């Protein structure tokens, strides 16, 4: 049994102008200790996916159908109290901007200890000891001092280390990290990413890494999902996708990487922008931007096709008769 199994997840945002589906038909699994990358443009639903796993969507968002099975329990339909005992305990999250993630009026110590006390019956002194140990693990200089400090007294990099330490406090099974290094200085991004990778490996924690940075995904993760306009369009082993992407969108993302362009050449951008969620086109949602668009792409939603170890939602991959169609058009 996989550690986490997401099936046909659909997330709706009930707005005044009508309900908008931020996630559609999202299914994937995560094994114990596995590191999974979730990539896509901003607005593709990556962060929504992260929050919906622990059912922490802010109003008016909600899971409208599908399930999130964690060790056999469906988190999408769990009672609030039971859900709370899993959040931060078995599944923890690391947010994007460490400047905003920590409460400005509470000390680091309070924010760490409260998390331990919420899930374990231990004394405050013991909780403090554990917090200190975790601070040492994230390699913060003079950790004893940090417990009594407030967030504004620490740098961004240090704060993100603390957020990671909080994420690891209860030795969770899964950490969901939503763009954990984007808000940081470029010089410490790699440092923080290495730290996370090492800690996950040491503690055998599964990692869901949400990012738009394909470079990081290729270095850190074993498997990856590519999302577009609320759907998964390609998933499989990271190596395979990076080396031989099947979906035109994934190919476009790869080509847009700076290292793919020759010196002096312009970066290869995917033309156009992702449609807003209220106006997703019929058929394959990528069709207006796709170089290889066919008639069927504008009519029918592509289902997943197995290609090697990957699953791809693309008509071109599904129907090898593309050559015939091209000839017909000529």
């Amino acid at each position, binding site marked *: 049994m996989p550690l986490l199994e997401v099936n046909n997840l659909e997330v709706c945002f009930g707005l005044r102008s009508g309900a908008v589906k931020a996630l559609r038909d999202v299914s994937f699994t995560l094994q114990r200790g596995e590191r999974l990358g979730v990539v896509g443009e901003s607005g593709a639903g990556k962060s929504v996916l992260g929050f919906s796993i*622990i059912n922490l969507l802010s109003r008016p968002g909600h899971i409208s159908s599908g399930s999130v099975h964690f060790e056999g329990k469906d988190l999408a339909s769990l009672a609030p109290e039971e859900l709370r005992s899993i959040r*931060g305990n078995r599944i923890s999250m690391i947010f994007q901007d460490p400047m905003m993630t920590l409460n400005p009026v509470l000390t680091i110590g309070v924010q760490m200890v409260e998390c331990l006390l919420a899930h374990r019956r231990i004394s405050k002194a013991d909780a403090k000891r554990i917090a200190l140990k975790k601070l040492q693990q994230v390699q913060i200089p003079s950790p004893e001092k940090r417990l009594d400090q407030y967030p*504004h007294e620490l740098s961004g990099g240090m704060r993100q280390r603390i957020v990671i330490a*909080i994420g690891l406090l209860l030795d969770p099974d899964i950490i969901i990290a939503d763009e954990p290094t984007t808000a940081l200085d470029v010089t410490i991004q790699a440092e923080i990413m290495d730290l996370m990778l090492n800690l996950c490996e040491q503690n055998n924690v599964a990692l869901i890494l949400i990012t738009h940075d394909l470079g990081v995904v290729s270095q850190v993760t074993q498997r990856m999902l590519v999302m577009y306009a609320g759907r998964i369009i390609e998933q499989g082993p990271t190596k395979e996708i990076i080396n031989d992407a099947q979906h035109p969108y994934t190919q476009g993302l790869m080509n847009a990487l700076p290292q793919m362009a020759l010196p002096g050449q312009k970066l290869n951008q995917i033309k156009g922008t992702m449609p807003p969620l209220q106006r997703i086109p019929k058929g394959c949602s990528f069709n207006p931007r796709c170089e290889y668009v066919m008639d069927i792409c504008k009519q029918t939603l592509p289902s997943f096709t197995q290609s090697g170890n990957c699953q791809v939602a693309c008509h071109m991959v599904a129907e090898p008769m593309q050559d015939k169609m091209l000839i017909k058009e000529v």
Partner: protein
Amino acid sequence: MIAFFVKRFFQAVVVMFVISLISFSIQDNLGDPLRELVGQSVSEEERQALRDEMGLNDPFLVQYLRFAKKAVQGDLGDSYFFKKPAFDVIMKKLPATLELVFGATIIIILFSVPIGVYSAINPQSWFSKTVMGLSIVGISIPVFLTAIGLIYLFAIELNWLPSYGRGETSNLLGWETGFLTADGLKHLILPSFTLASIMLPLFIRLIRSEMMEVLQSEYVKFAWAKGISPRRIYFVHALKNTMLPVITVGGVQIGTMVAYTILTETVFQWPGMGFLFLEAVNRVDTPLIVAYLIVVGAIFVVTNTLVDLIYGLVNPAVKLAGKK
């Protein structure tokens, strides 16, 4: 900490200086002290001689310094009406006003925090919607009409509560208090609610909107993700951050509150400073008007300092005490 008080002290000096200047010009322009002393039947030469003797012909600065020197010693001249030192007359009325403000503050805190927090947590509930509707009605009713309405209902129709005065007071270490007798407390109820009524809707709305904003913040989301209890999230994580802007606004509103004591005290004939001030205005009792201004100025300075202190205690980003 020392730097904070030095800065505060400096500000206080500036404020009091400005108030004393205003007060002095009022005293200088309002009424001729000579007439108060000798009446009309004195010749012009004698008047001039007297003016010289009293220093009324001295340059403005000299006269102001003399006034300020006396003022610092608490001597603001005698009230024309009471024939007693104006400062003493005001100070005697101070407890009544302070107790009224205190009562209103208690009511505001007691009601606005829970109601504001509840309607921020459950913005869609019928209770929150009713509260929001009522609060806008509350804002729209002038404080003197609230007072009249309360008097009409509780004093005249139902005859439950007294409509004017302070009732029985007792002396507590030189402070005339109405808090220790049942009669005094009964008299305090209507005026306190009246004074509170003007601020209560404002604070409920403020707390609600600030709290709703805080609940959307990343750190509250992170707190949810940590799996800590809703109660702790609302009352430790969110409320503390909500209170920061509320404290600032509260500090500003204290000034408004003092102004509204004049209205409240007038309707309830509450024997406080505000009521006295209005009487002094009608009697052109200049020393009393000046004394009132100076005491109110002092109240402003003290409360603003207190508010800053409280703000510093709640907000760790503000360093009052310097690094430990």
